[in-house]
């Protein structure tokens, strides 16, 4: 080992050790004094207190924040152990002339804009056998999954988004640059290339660089203005053989159609409605509407008035869609968050027709394959305003897309159509390509060696990092997340508790695992690229300039300590460093009495699919076991590590379920998404509800300020608090994010008997400006009484308007107070007892507060249980006994 290497190695070990124990940041000279994390160690900066909104921060500031978030995840082992990305190779037939021979990140080769020579050759110099296809001049594609639906509103099928994209259009789209070296955004259904900022009253305001706003206007093409579109058409089209062909082919897009998809998703509670209520990208009032409106109310009456509260409105005068987001958006993200095929216009009468007179039924039927054995008769539930029309559909066998002549950019579509042939798996598709029957195919991992240098092969960039996910919980942490009252996934029966292994929460052990991976070997075996950090190159911190976070100073800094360690020139790999870290781990574990010196430590490694296990399972096992066992031997111990590889279940989702429920030591897996908004994507690290169930690594609680916390703006933050502040606004107390109103438990509120009235107070965080004015503006969005019997909420709901019954007083000494008429409470209780046919002894006061702060507007629910006796009322007895 040369001297230079030793120096690098020792420095790196030191950095990691300090980082792991938090000592690296252990100073007391911060400009805001010192404070302590939950563990009691001193922090460099004071914990964040107040309201913070970094959603409009510059790219460089966002890069710093993302650097902190990723760094935290890596050092706390919540990012798992990155192995390689999913880059690979695509083969194209010679008859395809690609728009770009080089892969454009997050765009591809521009296959949709490429051209096809029908007289050209297929792979291996073969000629496409036109006797085997009715569509020889169409692009011959393939699929290994067919969910039987194009209904992206309500399907999670992996194939559905792609299918839906063929028949839908969006407000904004991307297209390749003229010199084919990148892509740019432009208006598609929108009459402008960027949305227009509005003030809160809906008036257009001038755009200034970097500005943010909750309110944005998107002028759209409709029947009223399509004549000015230079010949572009804005019409629907259906397959020629469809029963609706005469009614809908050529039907113009009208403004109402733009509203339909939002109504459809919210009214029916479709799975994709989640995007509409998401704090970072969703719309104001959508959450209230989704959960309040129900499905039984009439659209002519109550429901329509509810929808008025949703921040998605049509503007007849401007022929535009006006959006009110929950969180202020930059212009790019206002565009990005509205540029989805989910919001493609849809005539409501089409849904009524395919729903046999019922729009809700039609919304469910939309996109669903028909029941005929004739593929041409299976497209009746489809309607297109996108680039293609589906003209034939035989599930799992073949889907035929024909160019839609009325697509708004029809002149740019070079293919006559697409044929998507169904195959059992990628291998079968690959054989078909070699046989000259396909125009494009992905090279399977096992064939990479043979085809990576093929003249028709094109390398793609990776967007997803495949990792070893780790369950780094201590026993206490595991019980916190997964015990009887677990916050993530409660295990009601202790017999089902996972056996937490002490070694899994040892930071030296986990760091050692990072350095024992020869990522070059892994990359060669899988045909991908080595990965060193949590985020791949595909994640753009500035999507407008295509700047990858990995290429920024902060992005490089996160992985520098890891990548600078090298053995045989291979970054992030050092068996000697791994052994050193394992030695430290073993010493500590034995000293703490967690393991005996001769113990055989067995850890389980779950694989998503057998293919992965077969490919690199044994290699990874050896990478992990060999240096560990060598380290133990060097210490004179007979301790051994055994990795037990196994496939999690019959489906790859079984592995994710195990990760989701904390029932694993190691698991292979990857989570990806939102590459153009990486800060928003970082929610998947959170160990609470912010992650929306996508957490795959477990350990430190991200809602707490732990040792070695996130540091930004000269403050110490919990991961969640910094994440929240970066994606909107966070109210922080002691570095942790708190809600604008506490939920109403006894410790966060009060009930005062005032004689004929009762006063209920909901505690708010102590957030005031220098003049003692509250920084959060509260309005009451809704009030309900709910009645209960004992601890059980058996009762009934009664909508209560603010008036004589309830009076609201804004913030008063840290409380939001309501004065409630007791007589009214008693009357409601009595009538509810009879309606619910049960006795009532408690009323539950439920309030929805519309909270506005730093430009964010969100509704928060709080409630308080109040026994009737406590306020001098009588229990309500059900008279019908």
């Amino acid at each position, binding site marked *: 080992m040369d001297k230079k290497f030793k120096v690098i190695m020792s420095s790196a070990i030191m950095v990691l050790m300090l980082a792991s124990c938090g000592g690296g940041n252990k100073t007391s000279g911060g400009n805001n004094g010192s404070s302590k994390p939950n563990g009691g160690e001193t922090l460099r900066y004071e914990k964040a207190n107040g309201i913070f909104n970094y959603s409009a921060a510059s790219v460089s500031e966002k890069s710093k924040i993302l650097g902190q978030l990723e760094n935290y995840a890596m050092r706390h082992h919540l990012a798992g152990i990155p192995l390689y990305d999913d880059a690979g190779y695509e083969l194209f037939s010679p008859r395809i002339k690609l728009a770009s021979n080089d892969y454009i990140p997050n765009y591809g080769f521009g296959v949709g804009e490429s051209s096809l020579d029908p007289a050209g050759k297929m792979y291996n110099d073969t000629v496409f*056998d036109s*006797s*085997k*296809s*009715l569509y020889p001049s169409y692009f011959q594609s393939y699929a290994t999954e067919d*969910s*039987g*639906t194009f209904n992206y509103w*309500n399907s*999670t099928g992996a194939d559905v988004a792609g299918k839906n994209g063929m028949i839908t259009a969006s407000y904004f789209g991307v297209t390749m640059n003229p010199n084919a070296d990148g892509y740019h955004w432009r208006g598609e259904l929108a009459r402008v290339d960027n949305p227009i900022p509005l003030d809160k009253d809906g008036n257009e305001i001038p755009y200034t660089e970097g500005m943010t706003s909750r309110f944005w206007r998107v002028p759209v093409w409709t029947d009223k203005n399509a004549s000015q579109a230079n010949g572009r058409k804005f019409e629907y089209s259906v397959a020629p053989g469809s029963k609706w062909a005469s009614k809908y082919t050529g039907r113009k897009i009208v403004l109402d159609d733009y509203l339909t998809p939002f109504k459809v998703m919210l009214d029916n*509670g*479709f799975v*994709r*409605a*989640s995007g509409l*209520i998401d704090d970072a990208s969703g719309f104001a009032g959508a*959450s*209230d509407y*989704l959960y*309040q409106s129900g499905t039984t109310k009439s659209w002519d009456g109550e429901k329509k008035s509810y929808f008025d509260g949703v921040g998605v409105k049509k503007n007849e005068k401007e022929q535009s869609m006006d959006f009110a987001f929950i969180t202020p958006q930059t212009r790019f993200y206002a565009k990005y968050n509205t540029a989805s095929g989910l919001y493609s216009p849809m005539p409501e009468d089409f849904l009524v027709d395919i729903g046999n007179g019922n729009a809700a039924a039609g919304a469910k*039927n939309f996109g*669903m*394959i028909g*029941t*005929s*054995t*004739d*593929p041409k008769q299976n497209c009746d539930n489809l309607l297109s305003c996108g680039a293609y029309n589906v003209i*034939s559909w*035989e*599930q*799992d*066998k*073949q889907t035929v897309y024909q160019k839609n002549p009325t697509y708004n950019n029809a002149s740019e579509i070079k293919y006559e159509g697409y044929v998507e042939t*169904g*195959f*059992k798996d990628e291998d*079968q598709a690959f*054989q*078909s390509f070699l*046989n000259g*029957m396909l125009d494009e195919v992905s090279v399977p991992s096992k064939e990479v060696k043979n085809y990576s240098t093929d003249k028709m092969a094109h390398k793609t960039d990776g967007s997803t990092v495949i990792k070893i996910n780790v369950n780094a919980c201590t026993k206490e942490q595991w019980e916190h997340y997964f015990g*009887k009252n677990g916050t993530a996934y409660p295990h*009601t029966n202790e017999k089902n508790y996972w056996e937490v292994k002490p070694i899994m929460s040892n930071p030296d052990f986990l760091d050692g695992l990072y350095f024992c991976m020869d990522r070059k070997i892994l990359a060669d075996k899988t045909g991908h690229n080595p990965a060193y950090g949590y985020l791949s190159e595909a994640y753009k911190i500035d999507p407008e300039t295509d700047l990858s976070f990995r290429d920024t100073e902060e992005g490089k800094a996160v992985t520098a300590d890891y990548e600078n360690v090298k053995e045989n020139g291979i970054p992030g790999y050092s068996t000697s460093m791994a052994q050193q870290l394992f030695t430290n781990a073993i010493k500590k574990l034995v000293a703490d009495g967690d393991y005996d010196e001769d113990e055989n430590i067995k850890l389980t490694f779950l694989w998503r699919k057998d293919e992965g296990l077969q490919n690199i399972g044994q290699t990874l096992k050896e990478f992990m076991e060999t240096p560990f066992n060598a380290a133990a031997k060097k210490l004179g111990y007979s301790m051994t590590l055994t990795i037990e590889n196994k496939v999690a279940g019959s*489906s790859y989702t*079984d592995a*994710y*379920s195990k990760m989701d429920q904390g029932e694993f030591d190691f698991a292979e897996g990857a989570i990806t998404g939102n590459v153009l908004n990486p800060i928003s994507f970082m929610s998947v690290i959170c160990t609470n509800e912010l992650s*929306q*169930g996508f957490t795959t690594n477990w350990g430190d609680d991200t809602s707490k300020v732990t040792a070695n916390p996130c540091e930004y703006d000269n403050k110490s933050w919990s991961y969640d608090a910094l994440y929240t502040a970066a994606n909107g606004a966070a109210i922080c107390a002691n570095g942790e994010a708190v809600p604008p109103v506490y939920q109403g438990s006894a410790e966060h509120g009060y009930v005062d008997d005032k004689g004929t009235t009762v006063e209920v107070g909901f505690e708010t965080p102590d957030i005031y400006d220098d003049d003692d004015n509250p920084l959060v503006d509260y309005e009451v969005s809704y009030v*309900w009484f*709910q009645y209960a019997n*004992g*601890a*059980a*909420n*058996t009762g*009934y*709901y009664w909508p209560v308007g603010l008036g004589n019954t309830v009076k609201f007083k804004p913030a008063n000494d840290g409380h939001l107070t309501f004065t409630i008429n007791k007589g009214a409470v008693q009357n409601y209780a009595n009538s509810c007892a009879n309606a619910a046919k049960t006795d009532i002894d408690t009323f539950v006061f439920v309030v929805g507060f519309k909270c506005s702060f730093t430009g964010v507007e969100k*509704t928060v629910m709080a409630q308080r249980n109040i026994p009737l006796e406590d306020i001098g009322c009588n229990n309500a007895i059900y008279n019908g006994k």
Partner: protein
Amino acid sequence: MWKYVLKRLGLLLITTFIILSLTYILLQCLPLEAPRGNTTEMISFYNRQVALGYFQRVAPGDSGYEAFIANPEAADFKMTLTTGETVFFSSLPVMVRYVRWLGNIVLRWDWGTSTQISIGQSAISIILRRLPVSMKLNIVAMIISVPAGIGLGIWAALKKNKMTDHIISTLVMVFISVPSFVLISFMLIWMAYGAKWVPTQWPSAEMAAVDWKIAVRGYVIPVLALCFGSICGFARYTRAELCEVMSSEFLLLARTKGLTRAQAVVKHALRNSMVPIVPMIIGEFVGVLSGSMILEQLYGIPGIGSLFVTALNAKDYSVVMVDMAIYTLIGLLATLVVDLSYGIVDPRIRMGASK
């Protein structure tokens, strides 16, 4: 006879009922695979379970709500709405689900909807769309394999212990021993990818409707794959039966009475040897039908065999149940027809006749 048939039909229905009931109950005992993801997705999933009758949604005012409030862990999913309403989703006991499932079938002929294969579509319609392909394929396979198998068996029997018999018997043993998926793969490599005589995949319905030659060529590999086993089975069985009959005393008597060898074989030997072979034809049909599961997967045939495998992997139990019902019914009906066929082939056998 008719009384016997009716009795058998009654037993068939009872057997089907028992098989499907057990299958349903066992499938329902498997753990539920709820989505992990955003709340809306989970709500949608649980609402679908409620619609299918597998779960109950317990809201304030519903019976049992108190119990869930006291012990929220008893519910599979708990949701608190912004209105303050807490709603529980809880799986119903297996037997309750079973009764509901049964009720839906008996009262409304509703076999449930697909939860994975074609979300929201009725399981029956999915099966009906795919059934014709599987049936056509299997019928063609039987039409070819019966005469070919029996013919080879007769030929081998007539040439007993000669070179022809040895060759046929050897080939029969080889093809019976080689697993069908090996044969399919071999034929795909040789006939489809190599010689390019036939398509590498089952042609689309659209293509087959337009070009009958393609449709016919598409049948070559799957029919051959299905036929090999059947032909061998028939040949082996026919040879054995015929050899036995031909060495029997009554055939010797027929020859001594002056019949030619051909007359003795056709009029007496064949007729007698067919008694066990005809029922075998029907039994073989069921075997071929189940054997097409792997074939359909490998050759991309959109039939009910591949659907069964896909539905099982995807845990789409409604589709699995209908597929199961089809296979069960076909199997049991075949058994009935087999039993009845004994009487047709050999008039001495009387079904259901009292002694």
